């Protein structure tokens, strides 16, 4: 590799500024815990984290503008172009030795970076109140959250399997700790242990997959893997093992192992059993982070891997189709049985992973339709779940009790009408009820899939996948609506007289902001889905 000029290094640092900056903020927050150790200062690490995340939003806007500034003569844009100019917009192989691509296919990475920062921001907003209620205020919470966020960002932008593995671990290891953060609560500890054992088990599979792919192609760079498999370039390694054509056992074995590893992380059937237990036992704010953040980043990772193996399309699409059907079935049927909202949302997140997989089947035919709709779906999915969790936290704050089981929801519609309505809104959106954001996300994704099935007759089966997805999302309305019915149509349980005096509190500004931001975004996407989708394309 030629030596890098100072200017190139500067460009690189600027385009990678988000993860670098957030890692730095994470270290600062970790240190700040030493300073803010009085009881009335416990919230300061959270404030610092929020400031850091807002700062990284500006960095995101900066990198968005670098890639998307319109080429008009408008004086404002001309000035902005001058300020933001990147000398010879770098090729993906320039950044970090070809390991990191800040944009991704159809801006998938760039958009998911924004989703991830918003996820971290909302989780940080709802965390302090929850941690105080459970007496868990420890400053390292926010530092771990930030490190996990850096892991998510690197995972999404990784174009090299080494970085994919390292980013995954950078995400997972803080999450193992966060899942067990409520120790000595046995449920939290159990959740952490299960997550840890199954998570590192999955990482080992992923790693074995990387080794096999490396052995078969001689490289771990996803772009190079794609080119080698397509026969565009010869492998750089002199004595390659077994590489002859595409249907090579080592490549297929490696791809399967990679899919197993990723499948565990985004809880695809049959690797989903850990999900409800871990989501239920972990502290609720950590569950929110896992539901929204990990799933989004894991999905982008899956897309990146599948794109690298696009030549083997014929081989992997039936596999993905079968997993999609199973995942949708198990997720939806499992959710019906649940009477605990955290477990219900865990199963619902499995079901949503299934819907997104349906979209992925059409990936090679119409990437220019599937990928933007997928990023819209990922964003809406993350926001809806975050919104539901944020309202849940606001309700807990307002009622001063834990609201998890179905019975806890009785009568909330009367006591806290606004919050209850918002929760109903998010749940309906999760069910894909028109005209919410969840409906449009599903609509676009499924339309794209049908279009690609019509383009390629060998994919006719896909239309049936979409039919299954639509039927199942209608069924899903049942288990989401149950909580709405409980809130509005069930009388509150009789309370003792001394509790009758209890004045409903207003949720704190932090939780209130989180609820408002997510509700507004979901509402906006629901009202104006088309311009947003155009922005993504």
């Amino acid at each position, binding site marked *: 590799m030629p030596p890098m000029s100072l200017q190139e290094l500067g460009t690189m640092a600027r385009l990678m500024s988000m993860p670098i900056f957030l890692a730095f903020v994470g270290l600062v927050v970790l240190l700040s815990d030493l300073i803010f150790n009085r009881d009335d200062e416990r919230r300061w690490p959270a404030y610092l984290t929020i400031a850091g995340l807002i700062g990284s939003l500006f960095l995101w806007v900066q990198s968005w503008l670098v890639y998307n500034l319109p080429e008009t003569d408008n004086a404002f844009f001309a000035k902005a172009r001058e300020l933001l100019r990147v000398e010879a917009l770098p090729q993906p192989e320039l950044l970090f030795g070809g390991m990191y691509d800040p944009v991704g296919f159809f801006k998938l990475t760039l958009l998911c970076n924004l989703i991830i920062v918003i996820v971290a921001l909302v989780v940080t907003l709802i965390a302090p109140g929850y941690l105080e209620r459970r007496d868990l205020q420890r400053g390292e919470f926010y530092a771990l959250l930030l490190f996990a966020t850096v892991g998510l960002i690197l995972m999404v932008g990784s174009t090299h399997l*080494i970085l994919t*593995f*390292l980013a995954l*671990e950078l995400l997972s*290891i803080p999450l*193992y*700790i966060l899942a*067990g953060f409520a*120790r*000595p609560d*046995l*449920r939290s*500890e*159990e*959740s*952490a*242990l*299960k997550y*840890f*054992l199954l998570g*590192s*088990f999955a*990482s*080992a599979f992923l*790693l*074995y997959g*990387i*080794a*096999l792919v*490396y*052995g078969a192609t*001689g*490289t*771990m760079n996803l772009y190079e893997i794609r080119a080698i498999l397509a026969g565009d370039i010869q492998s*750089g*390694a*002199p*004595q*390659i*093992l077994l590489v002859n054509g595409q249907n090579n056992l080592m490549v297929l074995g490696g791809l399967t192992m990679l899919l197993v590893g990723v499948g565990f992380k985004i809880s695809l059937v049959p690797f989903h059993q850990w999900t*409800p*237990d871990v989501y*239920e*036992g972990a502290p609720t704010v950590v569950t929110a982070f896992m539901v929204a953040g990990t799933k989004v980043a894991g999905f982008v990772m899956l897309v990146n891997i599948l794109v690298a193996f696009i030549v083997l399309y014929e081989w992997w699409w039936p596999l993905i189709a079968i997993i999609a059907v199973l995942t949708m079935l198990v997720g939806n049927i499992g959710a019906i*049985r*649940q009477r*605990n909202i955290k*477990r219900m949302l865990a199963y619902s997140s499995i079901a949503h992973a299934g819907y997104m997989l349906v979209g992925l089947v059409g990936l090679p035919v119409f990437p220019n339709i599937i990928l933007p709709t997928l990023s819209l779906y990922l964003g809406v999915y993350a926001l809806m779940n975050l919104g539901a969790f944020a309202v849940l936290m606001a309700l807990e704050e307002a009622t001063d009790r834990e609201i998890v089981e179905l019975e806890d929801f009785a009568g909330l519609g009367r006591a806290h009408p606004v919050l209850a309505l918002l929760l109903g809104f998010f749940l309906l959106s999760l069910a894909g009820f028109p005209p919410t954001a969840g409906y449009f996300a599903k609509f676009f994704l499924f339309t794209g899939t049908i279009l690609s099935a019509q383009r390629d007759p060998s994919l006719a089966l896909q239309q049936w996948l979409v039919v299954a997805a639509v039927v199942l999302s209608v069924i899903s309305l049942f288990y989401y609506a149950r909580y709405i019915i409980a809130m509005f149509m069930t009388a509150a349980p009789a309370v003792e007289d001394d509790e009758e005096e209890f004045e409903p509190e207003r949720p704190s500004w932090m939780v209130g902001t989180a609820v408002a931001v997510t509700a507004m975004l979901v509402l906006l996407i629901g009202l104006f889905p088309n311009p947003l989708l155009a922005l993504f394309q």
Partner: protein
Amino acid sequence: MELMTITTTHYLLLSAVLFSLGVMGVLLRRSAIIVFLSIELMLNAVNLSFVALSKHMGSADGQVVVFFVMTVAAAEVAVGLALIVALYRSLGTTDVDKVHELRG
């Protein structure tokens, strides 16, 4: 008797066998510590693959990965053992079958 030379294939086979042993350990053993040890065995089996392939292809990439994997494994040990100790303190056992607060 002709002396057999050890080729890359042998290393890869050994690695596959070790990896399978690790998988079986995770699936069959009930002590959290042994399960964890089996996971480490899987990681090291993969490391063996990486080194063998790297040597075979004459590229250093695989050997670099091994260093990363070792670092990550060390970090995992630190967190994992802490979790197991915390669980042992509250439950008095590390048997994963006895950990079943969460069900459904």
